[in-house]
């Protein structure tokens, strides 16, 4: 349980930093602000007349995933590289902690920092929802919270993994921003490009979406998160119907919410395993 000692130290340290208070404050503003907007400006609700938890969460989802992706860079990109840069890694690893414990401890500690920001924001928002909305669906709210925490774990994991590949805090930050651009922006071009190539370099769109293209659409952490929530929130029948329509048949297993959870878990495990491998071999 050596990682727990590292995680506790890390969280105690971060608790007093502006990073935690800043991210918490921002997320409270974001979630409460959107709840107020949703409750008071009818245009935001589109065609649905009444204010529902599901409608609000669908609105919050995109903003939350963007927030998590950016906050993870701020909170976790320096996790290991920063300690190596400053020299505190020598203090840390002078004690009987393995490098695996350090990676795990950092993952848990930094996830806790961002997780607290998220939980505080969502807890405060419940008050607004109860006061202003026509109805409140606790199960959907809980599902949203749990899946979002999984996204936090995944994104912090990616940042910790990148952080463990270098001894320079600045470079780790650059890697983090690079990963953000690749995953949030460039990855969106992947399915379109693949389809373009598969069609013999033509944009002729097929009548139904091939399954593998649909899968490429939900392969990034954010897309998998969105797909998983679409599947689990409010019973998920709407998503299933929409997807089935586009595919022209039943939804294959690899596009279900559970498959997306598996994709998220792969994003958690694979980068960390690679990052750890590099860290384990490195000269500090």
């Amino acid at each position, binding site marked *: 349980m*050596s990682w727990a*000692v590292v995680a*506790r*130290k890390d969280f*105690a*340290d971060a608790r*007093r*930093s502006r990073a935690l208070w800043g991210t918490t404050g921002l997320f409270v503003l974001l979630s409460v602000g959107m709840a107020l907007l949703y409750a008071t400006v009818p245009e935001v609700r589109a065609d649905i007349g009444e204010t529902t938890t599901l409608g609000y969460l669908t609105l919050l989802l995109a903003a939350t995933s963007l927030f998590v992706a950016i906050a993870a860079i701020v909170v976790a990109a320096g996790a290991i590289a920063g300690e190596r840069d*400053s*020299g*505190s890694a*020598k*203090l840390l*690893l*002078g*004690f*009987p*902690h*393995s490098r695996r414990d350090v990676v795990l401890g950092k993952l848990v500690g930094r996830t806790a920092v961002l997780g607290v920001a998220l939980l505080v924001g969502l807890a405060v928002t419940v008050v607004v929802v109860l006061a202003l909305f026509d109805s409140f669906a606790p199960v959907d709210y809980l599902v949203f919270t749990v899946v979002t925490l999984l996204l936090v774990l995944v994104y912090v994991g990616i940042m910790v993994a990148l952080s463990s590949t270098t001894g320079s805090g600045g470079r780790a930050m650059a890697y983090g921003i690079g990963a953000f651009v690749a995953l949030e922006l460039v990855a969106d071009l992947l399915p379109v490009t693949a389809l373009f190539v598969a069609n013999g370099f033509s944009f002729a769109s097929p009548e139904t979406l091939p399954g593998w293209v649909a899968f490429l659409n939900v392969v990034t952490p954010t897309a998998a998160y969105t797909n998983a929530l679409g599947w689990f929130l409010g019973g998920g029948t709407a998503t299933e119907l929409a997807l089935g329509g586009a595919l022209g048949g039943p939804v294959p297993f690899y596009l279900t919410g559970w498959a997306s959870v598996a994709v998220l878990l792969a994003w958690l495990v694979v980068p960390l395993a690679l990052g750890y491998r590099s860290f384990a*071999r490195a*000269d*500090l």
Partner: protein
Amino acid sequence: MNAIELRGLTKRYGDVTALEDVSLVVEEGEIFGFLGPNGAGKSTTIDILLDFVRPTGGEASVLGHDTSEESLTLRQRVGVLPDGYHLYDRLTAREHVEFAVASKRSDDDVDALLERVGIGDAADRKAGEFSKGMKQRLVLAMALVGEPEVLILDEPTTGLDPNGARKMRELIREERDRGATVFFSSHILEQVEAVCDRVGILREGRLVAVDTIDALRGALGTETRLTLTVDRVDDRLVAAIEAVPGVSSVRADGDRVVSVNCADDAKAAVLGAVSAVDTTLVDFDTEEVSLEELFAAYTETPAETAADDATTAPEVGR
């Protein structure tokens, strides 16, 4: 069992050699001083002991544990004051030591440890506000957690005032008396001389000497410095003294003073040479080679400092 054992230890970074074939045994219960100028490879050696870096060749062990294979067990039994560390600025002194206690799963009294290194009154202050000397004391307190069998201290007196350095030496002795082995590095021989049973001198990645300070002094020969005050210094006088066997260097300090480094038994011959060139000797003074010069003899170009004997001195440790 040996406290620390290095066998043919070599470390290269690209084509830069930091350590070259270093072999050394530090016995249990001794205070060992690891000396050398900055950049000689002291920190690299310590980094290898703690598995911060991996050797290119050779092996190292602490208390019989291989530094790469059994690093966790090794670090459980060792206390470390690393070089170039950084504290967690937002954590207090107490939280730092608490982290050390939790990491070692020991049951040390945190306040007693802070008291012992002299920063008990700053226990609840954040480390970010500490002076270099206080940081050094705090890291020492962390190193003492769990009564380590081996203490590895990299330049422990850096940033300490003379009083703090003396306290540090006292603590090192106390730890040795408790039964611990102390391995500490320094680039200042005086820091080491006062407490060390033995020293090893590292120069450009090679171990050039391992012995007690007295033995090292003996190995260099009893070199003496003669300071002669005469009525007039001229080239003839300098040439006459340089011609005396056993004289390693002659330097004129102004018009009336000559400094001569020579073997102990050449003193009379030097004085004889002075009167042979009709110079009047007004006064003379002799002193033993200082520690600083001793150190320089091992770590600088031999010809400059301690002539004949220094060329054989590097063989002492082999």
